[in-house]
Structure formats: structure tokens, C-alpha cells
């Protein structure tokens, strides 16, 4: 048991990297998803196709090949090698953009068609229709989903340990190599991830209860 607490403190030094990566990536994704959502909802066929292709391709390929492409392959094309952390943020940021686009779209789909029609009938322009009518209602559906996605991203981010980001998982691997005490080391790692995601999960539950929406936890690999 003392071992367990010892490892908890040792692994905690990785929390910073896990959180930094997740927040930066999801933050990047939240912004990038806006133009992609606009493309997917556009009346132009070409934009819709590009938006769909982006989302489908990013979701159809797991993070690891993307990570290897950015981390190992880009430098062979004459680009400056990226720091592992930067590569991780970039890859998970772009992947989040794809998933968050789908979450934004689910938010808009949950708003009845009559709302946009009523706004049009009242002569509201596209900006006010989105800003005042559609987005405030879409958020109700999208926010709990985005929180669930955040938790998923926090856990998925563990894979960046294989390219050398010193996150919780990387520290656990190192401890395991040094002490061959895998059971306790990885239980400690699990406990830390749980402690990080639990508050977000509880907040999400409370939020979707408050907003009266479903808390559908459905996050990709």
C-alpha cells in the first residue's frame, strides 16, 4: 500500500503534461471545428464534401498513425522536427476538431427546423440567427457531449507517451521498467486518470441534468 502512494506521488509529475496536452488539443479542436462545421452545413457542395472528407478521414484512422506521420514522417520531408508535445497537441487538436464538428452538428440538429424558419420569417440575418437563436439552443446538446469528449481525449492522450511526452503513462512505464512492479504502478496511473476525469464527468452529469439533455458518452478510439 505504501508502494501505491509512493507511485502516486512519482506519477503525479506527469499530470501537468497530460493536462496541458489535453487542454491545448481540445482548445485547438473547439476553434478548428467551427469552420469545419460551417463547411459541413454549407449550401455549397464542394465545401460540404471537403468538410465531410476531413471528418471522415480523421475519424477513420487511429491517433497512432497520425502521430507517427507528424512526428517521424514530416522531418523526412525537410521540415524541422517537432517537439513530442507539439506533435501531440497538433495531432490531437486536429482529431478533436473532427469529433467536435460532429458534436456541434448534433447540437444544431437537435434544434427544431422551425426555429431557423421563424428567424428567417422575422428577417433575422444569418449572424443573428446563429448567435441569438441556434447556438444558444445547440449548446444544450453539445456541451455535455463536448465534456464527455474531453474525458475521452484525456484518456486517449496517453498514447503520446510512445513518442516521448513525459505524461502520466510515460512515467508509469519508466517506473515499471525500473521496479518491475507493474500491478501497483499501473493501478496508481489508473487512479490518477480517474481522479482527473471524475470531476469533469460529475460536472457533465450535473450539467445535462440541469439542461435536461441526455449525457451520451460516445467517444472514439
Amino acid at each position, binding site marked *: 500500500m505504501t508502494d501505491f502512494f509512493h507511485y502516486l506521488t512519482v506519477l503525479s509529475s506527469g499530470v501537468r503534461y497530460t493536462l496541458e496536452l489535453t487542454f491545448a488539443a481540445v482548445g485547438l479542436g473547439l476553434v478548428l471545428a467551427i469552420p469545419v462545421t460551417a463547411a459541413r452545413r454549407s449550401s455549397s457542395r464542394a465545401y460540404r464534401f471537403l468538410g465531410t472528407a476531413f471528418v*471522415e*478521414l480523421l*475519424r*477513420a*484512422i*487511429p*491517433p*497512432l*498513425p*497520425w502521430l*507517427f*506521420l507528424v512526428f*517521424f*514522417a514530416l522531418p*523526412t*520531408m525537410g521540415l524541422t522536427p517537432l517537439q513530442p508535445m507539439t506533435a501531440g497537441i497538433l495531432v490531437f487538436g486536429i482529431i478533436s476538431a473532427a469529433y467536435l464538428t460532429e458534436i456541434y452538428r448534433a447540437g444544431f440538429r437537435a434544434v427544431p427546423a422551425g426555429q431557423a424558419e421563424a428567424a428567417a420569417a422575422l428577417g433575422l440575418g444569418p449572424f443573428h440567427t446563429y448567435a441569438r437563436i441556434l447556438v444558444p439552443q445547440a449548446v444544450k446538446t453539445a456541451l455535455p457531449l463536448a465534456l464527455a469528449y474531453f474525458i475521452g481525449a484525456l*484518456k*486517449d*492522450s*496517453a*498514447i503520446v*507517451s*510512445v513518442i516521448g511526452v513525459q505524461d502520466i*503513462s510515460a512515467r*508509469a*512505464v519508466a517506473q*515499471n521498467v525500473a521496479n*518491475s*512492479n*507493474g*500491478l501497483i*504502478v*499501473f*493501478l496508481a*496511473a*489508473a487512479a490518477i*486518470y*480517474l481522479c482527473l*476525469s*471524475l470531476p469533469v464527468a460529475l460536472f457533465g452529469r450535473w450539467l445535462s441534468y440541469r439542461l435536461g439533455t441526455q449525457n451520451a*458518452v460516445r467517444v*472514439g*478510439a
Partner: protein
Amino acid sequence: MNIHAWPDYLSQLWPGLRTSFLLLVALVALGTPLSLLLASTQRSHRKAVRWTTIGIVEFARGMPSLVLLYLVYFGLPSFNLTLGAFTAASVALAINYAGYTSDAIKSGLDAVPMGQVEASEALGLSRGVTMRRVILPQAVRIITPPMLSWIIVYFQTTSIAFAISVPELMSKAYSIASVNFQYLGVFAVAGLLYAVVSIPGSQLVSALERRQQRGTP
């Protein structure tokens, strides 16, 4: 970029893809019965059973798949149980998969009206027969699309078995690329192989969902 070499990479990656598929088959075969069990014990009217199940489910999906993988591979030896990398990956991902999918199965079971259970009871059917012959067949229709999309998700998740050197697609790609240094071509082909399986898969899921929506008024 040397596209002409891609067919060559493809044939070199092929055994890796096969292993990825085998891993998927193993984890689904192990995980689905477990998921079904967790779904039905989550519906138990005994509080202790329900809460134990919730505990197991939250444990199974509360940590990263990668950590669960390490836990099984490096942790079980503490119980004098050493699994090979492939077996460890199948077991770990099966537990993870069961944790996530039990909710989908549970809501499928919940969607079958109470009246069906009551009617079966009135007919004197045992609980097992009621589950197997009355509830499951009706729930399967609802459960199939979400389960399929989870299977696609887990096809992609098999890539993390790279971390314990299961010779699946990513491990193969990595070892090929570290010999020929063609990182771009090799990883691009590997990535596309995942896409070539996943995209038709998710299209099948949407087609099933659309058909279901039309079927139910």
C-alpha cells in the same frame, strides 16, 4: 513521395493487418459475452449487484485503454499469471470494450417494453428463456448499429497494442519504416488501411440506422 513503392509496403504490412483483425475478433469474442453479463447485472433489482456492476464498468473504462493494457500485461505476473502479448491485449481490450458497450446493450434491453416480460411471466416462461427467446431478439435490432460502431472504434484501438509489441499493423509499420526510413509512405499506407476498413464500416452503420428510423414510426 514515392507512390510506386506503396504496393510493396502494402504487401509487407499485410500480415500486420491480419494480426489486427485477429486481435479484433478475439477481443469482440471475449468482450461481448462480458458486456451482455454487465448489461443484465446492471438491470438487477438487487442493489449490491447493481452497484458492483457499475463499479466494474467504471473501472473498465475509467482509465486509458493503454493503461489497462499495461496493467494486464505487466500486472498479472504479480498473480503468477503471465500472458503473451497477444492474449494480454485481447483480454485488456475486451474488458475495456465490455465497459463501453454494456451501456449500449443495456439501453437496447431497456427499450423492450415491460409488457413483454409480464406476458412471458404470465406464460410461465423462465427468466433465462424470457431473456433468450423474448427480450434479446427484440433488443438485437436496436443494439446492432451501436455495437457495430463500437467494433469499428475498437478496430482502431487495436493499434495501441503496438505499445506491448503485438505484431499488429502499427508494429509492422514501425519496424518496416525503421529499416527503410520511408516513414511517410509506410505510415500513410498503414493509416489508409485503417481508413479502408473503418469508412465502409461506418457507412454500413449509418445505413442500418437510417433503415431503422424508417422502420419505426
